[in-house]
């Protein structure tokens, strides 16, 4: 399918891989993480229309063509009132874009960027489009990184391996019971895929969001760091401090700098060459 559902694009990002990268956020995710900071990327719009009345600048309207909300970007002041109102972890502002649309976006900034990072949501749920897209980017010699939770069939990875330079993986927890508590899904598929990708030296970075409310932090980071260290010591492990911004109403404990530093010290023992705190 040559249409993608795109939540947003960021022309310049310093935090989505090495160098300046264009970040493209795909709509849709199969997880429902309790701490998700961009939960408006999880589901497709159901056209319930509840968001339309919330908009103070009339940037949202009912499209007569397909009855889903239309969005006038030039009137939008990005107050996020529509996102807060949405009961479906979705957004009225994501776009349906074709291959040429996205390639044009990339071309506009190509002089400035080291490459493109596909993120989301979960990018690989739109594998049909993604395969075409990354193939085209590779033809244009543009570096491609993909942010993923890796919980998709291995076959999806096989289709795009020749065109993707590196993957950045969000591993939410090591123990399945923790993973299910956080995401409502187990991590068996993710672990298998991480293993394979690691052996192929296709993993740039693994990330875990940290809060004392999620799991035993020391045990978790130790097990994850040993796991990935045994695959490839050059994989960067990023410990991300949970931060309570985002639309989710339930908030959790934000870890202290002291805790993060101690966790970093613990992970370094695994022999990984790079552990950072974000």
């Amino acid at each position: 399918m040559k249409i993608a559902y795109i939540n947003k694009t960021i022309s310049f990002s310093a935090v989505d891989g090495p160098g300046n990268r264009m970040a493209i956020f795909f709509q849709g995710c199969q997880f429902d993480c309790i701490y998700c900071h961009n939960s408006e990327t999880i589901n497709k719009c159901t056209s319930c229309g509840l968001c339309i009345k919330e908009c103070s600048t009339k940037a949202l309207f009912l499209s007569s063509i397909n009855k889903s909300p239309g969005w006038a970007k030039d009137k939008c002041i990005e107050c996020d009132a529509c996102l807060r109102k949405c009961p479906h972890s979705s957004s009225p502002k994501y776009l349906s874009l074709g291959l040429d649309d996205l390639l044009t976006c990339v071309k506009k900034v190509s002089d400035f960027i080291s490459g493109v990072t596909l993120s989301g949501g979960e990018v690989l749920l739109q594998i049909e489009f993604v395969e075409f897209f990354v193939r085209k980017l590779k033809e244009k010699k543009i570096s491609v990184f993909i942010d993923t939770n890796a919980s998709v069939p291995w076959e999806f990875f096989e289709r795009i391996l020749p065109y993707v330079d590196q993957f950045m993986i969000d591993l939410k927890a090591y123990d399945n019971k923790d993973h299910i508590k956080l995401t409502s899904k187990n991590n068996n598929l993710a672990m298998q895929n991480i293993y394979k990708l690691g052996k192929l030296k296709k993993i740039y970075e693994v990330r875990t969001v940290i809060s004392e409310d999620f799991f035993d932090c020391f045990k978790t980071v130790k097990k994850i760091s040993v796991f990935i260290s045994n695959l490839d010591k050059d994989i960067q492990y990023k410990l991300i401090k949970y931060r309570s911004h985002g639309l989710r109403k339930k908030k959790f404990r934000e870890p202290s700098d002291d805790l993060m530093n101690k966790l970093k010290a613990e992970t370094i023992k695994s022999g990984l060459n790079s552990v950072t705190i974000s």
Partner: protein
Amino acid sequence: MSDILALIKDKSLTYHQKLYSLGMSAENTLDCLNFSGEAQRFFKENIICDLHEGSAPYKPRYIVPNYEKFLENGSEFLRLEPPKNLLEACNALLILYKNVPSITSFPVYLGNLDTLLNPYIKNEDYAYDILKSFLIHIDRTLTSSFVHANIGPKRTLCGEMILTIMKELKNTVPNLTLKYKKDVTDDKFLLKAIENVIETASPNFANDDIYQKDFKSKYGIVSCYNALPIGGGAHTLIRLNLKNLALSYQNFDHYLKKGLPHAVKIMSEIIDERSRFLVEESGFFESSFLVKENLIEKDNFLSMFGIFGMAEAVNCYLKDEKYGHSEKAHGLTLQILEVLENETSKIKSPYCYYSNGRPFLHAQSGISSDKDVSPGCRIPIGDEPDLFESISYVSEFHKYFPAGISDIFSFESTVKNNPQYLLDVIKASMKKKLRMVNFYTHDSDLIRITGFLVKKSEIEKRKSGTPSLNDATVLGEEAVLNCKTYERRIQK
């Protein structure tokens, strides 16, 4: 008289700051310059501003000595032989620096330090200690953020050492520019400079390929980010307030076809009168040892034609659109710049020796007392679009300003984990033909005001009445208040 007494008793000023201000006060009691009634009106209505250059110009505003010649030949006046080693070279430069006048009383250009000093480096450890003392000496005695050194474009041992030392010292002086030249400045040098930027908001990055095309000989980046010929300088820089001019012209077409050409004519009159006094009456070029020893030559002097308030001027002619966010605004700006380019190219000033009579355009960075008017062609602080949009918006404007223009961007400190990001942005900015870019992380103590550096901690100390060694701290304090410097958009 009471103003002068108040100055003398002002406990927040250092001795040197008082001395400088007393000198200015004396100069400003004179009435040596003859301006037409129209020029006087322009001054009174703040359409033109002389940036407090003084009523009787007795020294060029900016002097850019040929330090290469100085190190080769020494100086008879200063009784200095050509230096034979690094210690002598640094000592000689420091002595010369103290004898170079300017608008601030301190030298606005210190030379291309790495190419000047690299040949003298024999022992690395010894060189490091000398260079460190040299740079500390500069910070503590040439106490102005407008004191400006250059490095590059090629990476050298000396250039790398200077960067290492400046990162360690975290001083506001000297202001530093790395001249970037494609295929000459390597990524290693750039990445090292970026480490400095993250900690110290310095160096700036100048587009050597573009600047060198505008200057028939070598150039230096001086003061804030002005570009001037080496071995020469600028008699004067006065600036045109495009916003205040626009207030007299309701119709954009009239502004373009009547207002701007008339303002250029008045600017030209004022530039010439100020230059005339300096060149023909003050005796500077007859008496200065810098001229006698050919460290500067009159033929290498020109004048600078400054402009500011472009954003607010353009906004006068827009209804629901704004500068920085609108293609129409962009188009109007280019039209204004084309008129300025054409009109200034017709000027035949008898004193712009270097540039065949033509003053060079300069996007003036604003002064601390400016309120509700933006520097040069910059997008107003607090109203900036994202980084890509900002750079794309201003990139076409830079070519009009051979005497200097710069844009400043502030970043989240997360950028320190990804210096490659800034490398990509710098190289692409140069490719897009920006003349100069400056960066800083918003949580660093050193902050770039309009083109010069100040420490936030020094600003805070001054607020409690403690004098600051750096003269520019006062300006920084005012700019934070009037120009909303702390509200610059933080690019993520």
